[in-house]
């Protein structure tokens, strides 16, 4: 039996620890994680790009839900551990779940410090730590009003830059005379302030906050000197405190952080701590590089592997604000025994300072040009005597030994053990080695295999240069993601070439586009089959062997190999006769489970494959057709009761929903399409999280699209308002056809819309009446070949062989 490992906190440190542990001892522990944040492990560092809009949350997830499932890890999202019982060896969450452990890891991270001024609890006062904070800031930013950021450190400046990007009027209050004074000397701090102000952000130094005021919500900030700054949003980013309360209550030794030895063990041998909450050798940390080292050490300890000890090292600080390059490392205070070398280029806004002690670098501050950071770091780490190159040191690596100032040559000159990715401690040799040995061709590959550039991303340029260096001509940074290993073409190229070359069968595509495998794989074949169905509706013969089993047999496969069957219930409306027919089928075939789905219809689960045709035959007699609950195609159109019954209904939402579903059922689409029609803005059919939704209003039909409510949650965008039902249908059909023709296989509408831009979709579907009609007509044409009920087709004998064994053997022998 495996031992029980319980982890409190699901941040970046334990996430990394688990990766190492799963590699070293995959089956040793049954792992359970409790996380106060209601989500999976994501790259907290990258919250700033999410705030500024450069990245979407889904791009910064480190371990998606599937990862936990794959590794059999139980993750309790939104469960805060409130007690550790060290006697009983259990932990208990605020939702009352108690779990026992053999080994416990505390990784509770930090909590933002809140300055104890009046008004700190007013709505509109936020900290900057997690996705909820970012979402709250984004909400506040919608008003385009004024924001005050208290704190001119790394987090405060990243928050300010992000809010400014989002259209807010931002003021940064900093209590010290210069920004980021813990990482920058005053000269660099001054340059930084100028760069921040150049982006339209106001900076007030030596600003001491006295109070935050407002009536029921934030209205402004008052400084000690009486200055009043109006604001509707206040972000406090004044520092963090290790989150130690839980450990303290459990009686563990706690100082500034939870005290651990150099193997991450707390004062209780069964309990480890790591991450920002841990204190090792008198240090607590707030950057990921040392936390990742802790993760390595802790994993080795848990796996009883190598005897790895934690050693302190300095981590460089970089600011992730696009367009502002700064780099700071080590100790740069002035001192008797120290010398410094400085380079200033005022016109270019460059400042470089290297602090030396005994001819060795102990600190570096770079502003405006930071490419040599890694090189200085390397010299510092190795304590290289720099006397020889003293005169040219400050100009950087390119000037040493007469080498050219070509950045590629500079990277080429780096030693194999020079650190490229500070966050993950990955050196040059490891990256070039992986590129050669594993045959990596792009940045994502390198990130996947070595983790380099996978955290804060500031070494991305260096990694790309290493790719260039190692692969030479073969490296093409603009290369598109190929569809799969069978081709080097991306989805868009394949779609384009199918049309351009008039390719009409899968073998033709594979031949003409030089597929590398004889008959493709389970990724490309379904995609090609869809593209051909969509582009040549009247000519292409659907290839069933290239469809996923569900679409091949028109039912959903279940974990035990049985199937589920979901008939259409147009718009969610049913009748006594239909319900009776379902009841009869359930009795006759002894169907073990009948369930109302989330899509307003009924699912019958646990049907044997052999019985499917007979089940459909009976359902068909009662008028049912397949609900395509399995299809990358039109699924459900949810409706509410609308004007027929509801006292608030403004239009016949039920009728429109049924009309859409009857018009569009049977069509194949790149990914599933779910719709809904609500009779009024109360929106009981939840139309605003669907692929396509309609919200009826007095003046007509508001058409929505690009919502999501599955793996991602996203409200819809409004396409526009139309006056009549006919127009609504035409717009929706045209929109779906545009999506059918352009999207990549498995790409839901919201992802496609994000890629090509909602403005472009509006232009083609709403503004350009001609285009809309053409799309509409192409959809109508393709429906002629699609609207065949697959169930009745099979009941009448098509593919009947699929549903029964080709032979039964051995039964007589067994009976003997």
């Amino acid at each position, binding site marked *: 039996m495996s031992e029980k490992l319980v982890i409190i906190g699901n941040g970046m440190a334990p996430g990394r620890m688990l990766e190492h542990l799963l590699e070293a001892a995959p089956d040793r522990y049954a792992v359970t994680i409790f996380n106060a944040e209601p989500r999976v492990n994501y790259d907290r560092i990258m919250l700033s790009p999410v705030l500024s809009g450069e990245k979407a949350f889904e791009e910064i997830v480190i371990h998606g839900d599937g990862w936990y499932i794959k590794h059999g890890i139980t993750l309790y999202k939104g469960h805060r551990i409130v007690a550790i019982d060290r006697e009983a060896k259990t932990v208990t969450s605020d939702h009352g779940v108690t779990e026992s452990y053999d080994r416990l890891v505390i990784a509770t991270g930090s909590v933002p410090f809140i300055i104890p001024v009046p008004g700190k609890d007013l709505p509109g006062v936020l900290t900057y730590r997690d996705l909820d904070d970012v979402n709250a800031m984004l909400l506040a930013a919608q008003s385009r009003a004024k924001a005050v950021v208290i704190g001119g450190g790394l987090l405060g400046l990243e928050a300010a830059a992000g809010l400014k990007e989002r259209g807010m009027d931002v003021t940064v209050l900093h209590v010290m005379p210069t920004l980021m004074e813990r990482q920058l000397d005053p000269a660099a701090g001054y340059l930084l302030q100028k760069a921040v102000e150049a982006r339209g952000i106001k900076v007030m130094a030596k600003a001491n906050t006295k109070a935050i005021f407002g009536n029921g919500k934030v209205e402004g900030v008052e400084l000690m000197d009486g200055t009043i700054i109006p604001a509707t949003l206040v972000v406090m980013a004044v520092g963090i405190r290790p989150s130690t309360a839980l450990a303290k209550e459990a009686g563990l030794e706690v100082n500034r952080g939870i005290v651990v030895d150099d193997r991450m063990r707390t004062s209780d041998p069964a309990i480890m701590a790591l991450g920002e909450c841990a204190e090792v050798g008198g240090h607590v940390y707030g950057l990921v590089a040392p936390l990742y080292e802790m993760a390595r050490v802790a994993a080795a300890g848990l796996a009883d592997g190598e005897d790895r000890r934690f050693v302190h090292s300095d981590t460089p600080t970089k600011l992730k604000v696009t367009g502002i390059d700064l780099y700071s490392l080590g100790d740069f205070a002035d001192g008797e025994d120290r010398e410094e070398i400085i380079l200033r280029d005022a016109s270019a806004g460059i400042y470089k300072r290297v602090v030396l002690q005994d001819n060795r670098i102990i600190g570096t501050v770079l502003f405006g040009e930071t490419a040599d950071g890694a090189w200085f770091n390397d010299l510092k780490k190795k304590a290289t005597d720099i006397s020889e190159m003293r005169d040219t040191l400050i100009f950087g690596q390119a000037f040493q030994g007469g080498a050219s100032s070509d950045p590629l040559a500079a990277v080429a000159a780096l030693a194999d053990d020079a650190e490229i990715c500070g966050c993950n401690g990955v050196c040059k040799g490891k990256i070039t080695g992986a590129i050669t040995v594993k045959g990596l061709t792009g940045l994502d590959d390198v990130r996947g295999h070595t983790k380099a550039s996978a955290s804060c991303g500031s070494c991305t340029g260096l990694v790309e240069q290493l790719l260039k260096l190692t692969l030479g001509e073969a490296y093409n940074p603009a290369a598109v993601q190929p569809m799969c290993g069978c081709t080097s073409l991306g989805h868009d190229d394949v779609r384009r070439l199918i049309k351009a070359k008039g390719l009409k069968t899968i073998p033709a595509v594979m031949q003409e586009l030089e597929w590398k495998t*004889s008959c493709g794989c*389970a990724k490309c074949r379904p995609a090609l089959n869809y593209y051909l169905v969509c582009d040549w509706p009247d000519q292409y013969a659907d290839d069933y062997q290239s469809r996923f089993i569900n679409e091949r047999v028109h039912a959903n496969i279940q974990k035990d190999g049985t199937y589920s069957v979901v008939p259409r219930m147009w718009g969610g409306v049913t009748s006594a006769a239909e319900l009776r027919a379902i009841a009869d089928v359930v009795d006759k075939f002894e169907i073990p489970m009948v369930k109302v789905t989330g899509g307003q219809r009924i699912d019958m689960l646990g049907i044997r494959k052999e019985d499917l045709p007979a089940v459909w035959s009976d359902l068909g007699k009662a008028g049912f057709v397949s609900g395509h609950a399995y299809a990358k195609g039109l699924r459900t159109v949810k409706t509410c009761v609308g004007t027929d019954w509801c006292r608030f209904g403004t239009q016949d939402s039920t009728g429109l929903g049924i009309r859409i579903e009857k018009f569009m059922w049977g069509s194949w689409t790149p990914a599933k399409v779910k719709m809904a029609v609500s009779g009024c803005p109360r929106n009981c059919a939840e139309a605003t999280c669907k692929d396509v939704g309609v919200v009826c209003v007095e003046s007509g039909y508001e058409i929505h699209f690009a919502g999501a409510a599955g793996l991602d949650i996203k409200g819809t965008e409004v396409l526009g308002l139309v006056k009549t039902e006919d127009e609504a249908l035409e717009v929706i059909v045209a929109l779906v056809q545009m999506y059918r023709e352009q999207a990549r296989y498995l790409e839901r509408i919201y992802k496609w819309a994000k890629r090509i831009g909602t403005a472009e979709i509006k232009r083609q579907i709403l503004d350009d009446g001609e285009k809309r009609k053409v799309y509409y007509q192409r959809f109508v044409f393709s429906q002629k070949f699609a609207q065949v009920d697959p169930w009745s087709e099979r009941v009448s004998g098509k593919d009947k062989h699929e549903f029964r064994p*080709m*032979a039964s*053997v*051995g039964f007589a022998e067994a009976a003997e």
Partner: protein
Amino acid sequence: MTWIAIGAIADIPPRGARCVATPQGKIAVFRTADDQVFAIDDHCPHKGGPLSQGIVHGAAVTCPLHNWVISLETGKALGADEGSVRTLPLKVEGERIFIALEALASKAA
């Protein structure tokens, strides 16, 4: 070795599979694009998914439940996954397909 006839190649669609029922469970019989035929237990080494229902490509099948790729020749999982499923001796004479009875029996043992 006793060979049992289970049907003809034409009974299986190219890049497809059909099942043979036995008292010990189903056997999946595959036909590749180039008309090679293979028989393996219809039971994925991962979580028992019915391999006969997967997509066939080259001499491999992708399990319909969680996408493991299983070699039809060796029964081994390909790529990063580890596990294997029993393969059964099979021969084709003309159009007819036979599988070995001993193999069936050994499964019962």
